[in-house]
């Protein structure tokens, strides 16, 4: 969907046609989901997070002033959401169990080792290895490679979304690629 089409839909929404927002959701759902899936690593959580982002975007449409492309703004909201999500949930997928210790209830987080739905998403061994190594990268590099190499955003847009300088974008891209390439090479996949 072009930026013009996005703006047309936004005008309709501002005029009161909230149902027009379905067009935005339909167009961007996979992109936002992929970004969140790459950052969070769990299909169901990424799906819930994607919906949260779209709700949040709808509720904050008033703050979009049209200074950037709508897609850039959408990614910015998603990136912020992801940062808050990470702060709240940490990196590992955990489940809580309640355990009685000396008569008091405690919550103990343990890593969820049940079969994950996303294991079925990537049938290709290479892609599965890529996903695995991507998940082990530092968060900054993972975010940058997702935006650049998966979603294809240009450097300038990445700088806007991540709120870092253009030179920092370039540095993170090449360092992230270098690190990932080395890891995949060690596994004999590159």
């Amino acid at each position, binding site marked *: 969907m072009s930026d013009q089409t996005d703006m047309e839909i936004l005008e309709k929404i501002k005029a009161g046609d909230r149902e027009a927002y379905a067009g935005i959701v339909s167009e961007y759902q996979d992109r936002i989901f992929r970004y969140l899936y790459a950052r969070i690593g769990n299909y169901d959580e990424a799906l819930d997070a994607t919906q949260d982002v779209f*709700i949040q975007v709808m509720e904050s449409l008033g703050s979009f002033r049209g200074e950037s492309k709508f897609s850039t703004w959408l990614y910015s909201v998603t990136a912020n959401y992801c940062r808050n999500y990470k702060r709240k949930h940490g990196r590992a997928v955990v489940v809580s169990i309640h355990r009685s210790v000396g008569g008091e209830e405690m919550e103990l987080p343990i890593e969820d080792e049940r079969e994950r739905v996303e294991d079925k998403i990537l049938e290709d061994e290479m892609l599965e290895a890529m996903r695995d190594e991507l998940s082990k990268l530092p968060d900054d590099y993972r975010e940058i490679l997702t935006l650049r190499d998966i979603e294809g955003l240009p450097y300038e847009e990445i700088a806007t979304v991540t709120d870092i300088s253009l030179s920092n974008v370039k540095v993170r891209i090449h360092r992230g690629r270098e690190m990932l390439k080395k890891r995949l090479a060690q596994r004999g996949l590159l």
Partner: protein
Amino acid sequence: MKEHIPFELLSEYVDGTLDAKESRELEKHLSSCSVCRGELDSLCRLCDALHSFRCVKIKDRDAFVRCTMKRMRSRTVRHIVYRYLMPASAAAVVLFFAGISLFDSAFQSRSVSEFARQQKPALSQPAVQQVQQNRIADVDFEDNVGAEYRIKDIRRILEKNGAQVTKVTGDYVEGEALLSDYQNIRGDFDFVALPPTLAGRGMNLAGAGDSDMRIGSANRSAQVVTFRIRRK
């Protein structure tokens, strides 16, 4: 370039962000360096593999859009309720109770004085004339209490018995009350001496606690009288 191409330059070349001159120099080196060609090749494969992640999609796209829109609609309703209806309802409840409170205090403040104004005309004409003849300095009754009573003690006793205080000085307190209440007030002050009888002037005051006071033929206990309690 004599040495191998730095990885960051290869990375920028893959992204197409080198200028024309840099690109030409790099391509010239690549044409004669198999190591750098190998590096470029593995970098391209890496970028292609990352790009193929685009196959990752939401399984049921239509259902996702429906669920998201449904959730958006329910949040809109909740937003309207919480932002507009609930504050309006809360304001209405507050205003309602404020109105009751104001009405109630307005009603209360009418109590003795308003009741007095309503009741005073109930006095029969002869009784009114008799009371007016016997008034001491513009009040119906005047009593003296000991100096041990402070003004605020006097007020407390008056107000406890439902009297309305109309004037306060350093020496006395004036007020008005139902006649029956005034009798209770006198009882609280434990008056030993009866106030001057007014028999000689056609009125006879009974002792404390006796509600059978004769002032005209009207309902004595419901009549409002004015009084002064003086400290001596």
